[in-house]
């Protein structure tokens, strides 16, 4: 048992160390700008444009269900018109960035790990290295940058759609007064909530790309190795996002209180 714990802990710490080294390499590579626009734009297209459907459906239905649930509770204390204010703050600072990141982690994190993992098992990464190309420059940096550009944009989309669909449900389905509903939402949802959401999504974009790339580049041999790397990329990225979200919320809300 001790041996198992030591092995597991050892592997976990080694993994953390390797991701840290890969992140350092990626930052160094960014400073010398070895990325080609073609690669970057393709990755933005793949991560941003191709994730539209999942993000739009997630944003819209999260906004709708949140509006309905909040209304049913607030209606008991006659606070119906505060419904959209709760939806606005929740969507901007928590649900928008977190759910978008989780959906993108499932789609993009898995795709990144599978693609790079397949390249590894078919010696394409070794071929890159023999062609005097650092795998981090060519594989990691474009995906990292693209993910950190695309995720905040997707998050904004998800927030806008979540609040809009919440408004439609609140006004047309639940019969809340639209003027007060909108006024309260604007009164209690500040710029700072949106800024917190955007900072979070920028960080999650980095997590998704780094975990996906790391799992792909270190995957085991054969189809089983690629399959395992793909699963682990999604699981580890999702867990990291949820854990990071807690600490980011504490820190960012505290900073926000100091600034206001």
């Amino acid at each position, binding site marked *: 048992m001790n041996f198992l714990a030591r092995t597991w802990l050892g592997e976990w710490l080694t993994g953390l160390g390797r991701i840290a080294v890969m992140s350092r390499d990626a930052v160094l590579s960014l400073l010398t700008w070895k990325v080609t626009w073609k690669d970057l734009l393709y990755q933005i297209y793949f991560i941003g444009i191709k994730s539209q459907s999942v993000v739009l459906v997630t944003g819209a239905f999260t906004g709708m269900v949140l509006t309905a649930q909040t209304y049913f509770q607030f209606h008991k204390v006659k606070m119906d018109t505060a419904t959209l204010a709760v939806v606005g703050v929740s969507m901007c600072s928590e649900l928008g960035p977190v759910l978008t990141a989780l959906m993108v982690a499932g789609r993009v994190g898995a795709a990144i790990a599978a693609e790079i993992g397949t390249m590894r098992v078919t010696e394409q990464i070794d071929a890159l290295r023999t*062609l005097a190309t650092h795998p981090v420059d060519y594989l990691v940096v474009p995906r990292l940058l693209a993910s950190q550009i695309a995720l905040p944009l997707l998050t904004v989309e998800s927030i806008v759609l979540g609040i809009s669909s919440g408004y439609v449900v609140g006004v047309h389905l639940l019969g809340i007064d639209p003027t007060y509903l909108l006024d309260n939402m604007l009164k209690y949802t500040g710029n700072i909530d949106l800024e917190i959401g955007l900072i979070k999504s920028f960080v999650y974009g980095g997590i998704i790309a780094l975990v996906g790339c790391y799992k792909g580049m270190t995957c085991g041999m054969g189809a089983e190795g690629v399959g395992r790397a793909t699963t682990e990329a999604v699981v580890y990225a999702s867990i990291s996002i949820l854990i990071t979200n807690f600490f980011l919320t504490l820190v960012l809300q505290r900073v926000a209180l100091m600034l206001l």
Partner: protein
Amino acid sequence: MIEVRQLKKNFGTQNILDGVDLLIESGQSAVIIGRSGGGKSVLLKHLIGLLQPDSGDVLVDGEVITHMNERQLLRIREKFGMVFQGAALFDSMTVEENVAFLLERQRKYSPAEIQRRVAVALEVVDLPGTQKKKPAELSGGMRKRVGLARAIIYEPEILLYDEPTTGLDPIVSDSIDQLIVRVRDHLKVTSVVVTHDMRSARRVGHQVFMLHKKKIYASGPPQELFASSDPIVRQFIDGVADAKENVF
């Protein structure tokens, strides 16, 4: 010049190389032969820094590469070209994009010049007009030839071939051998070929090294090594299995 000194490598508890010494002069064509799973490809990957040894050194033009990090190795690898056993072509790219990969990244040439060089490289490997094909549309032999075109387009000083004829029919194998000799003589490169194809070894090598029991067991010019009376060398060259392996 490539020099290997007392190279040792283990994967976990399995010992692969146990004190390999090797010297390949510039312009020479060296062939490394040995049994399957004997560590030939592992040795080849050490020469270009794809693997790091547990101990021992690899020197390229007098420079020790074994202690270099990945970024320092990039400068050394510009001297090398490598043809992989499975070709290792980038499957998301066309043949043209594969062959032009390094030139595109170097940003030294205009697109027209890159296109011209790609066409010349594909002509050299007898694959003209295949620029727009994807690797999946090519046969095994064609893929290896595209791999060779990708390796020679930037005119490296050293070319490494990992089992270039394995899995190919005798006619395609012969054409690959001819290609290796043509590239060697035309570009005056140092070649290192890993193979267990004896006909290929005889044809392309100036010097043959036999890897046996994790060390270089025998070496010499092909005519000398192929005439050897050493029982282990003879057994490998003649392709005779041990009696215990003939159970059925």
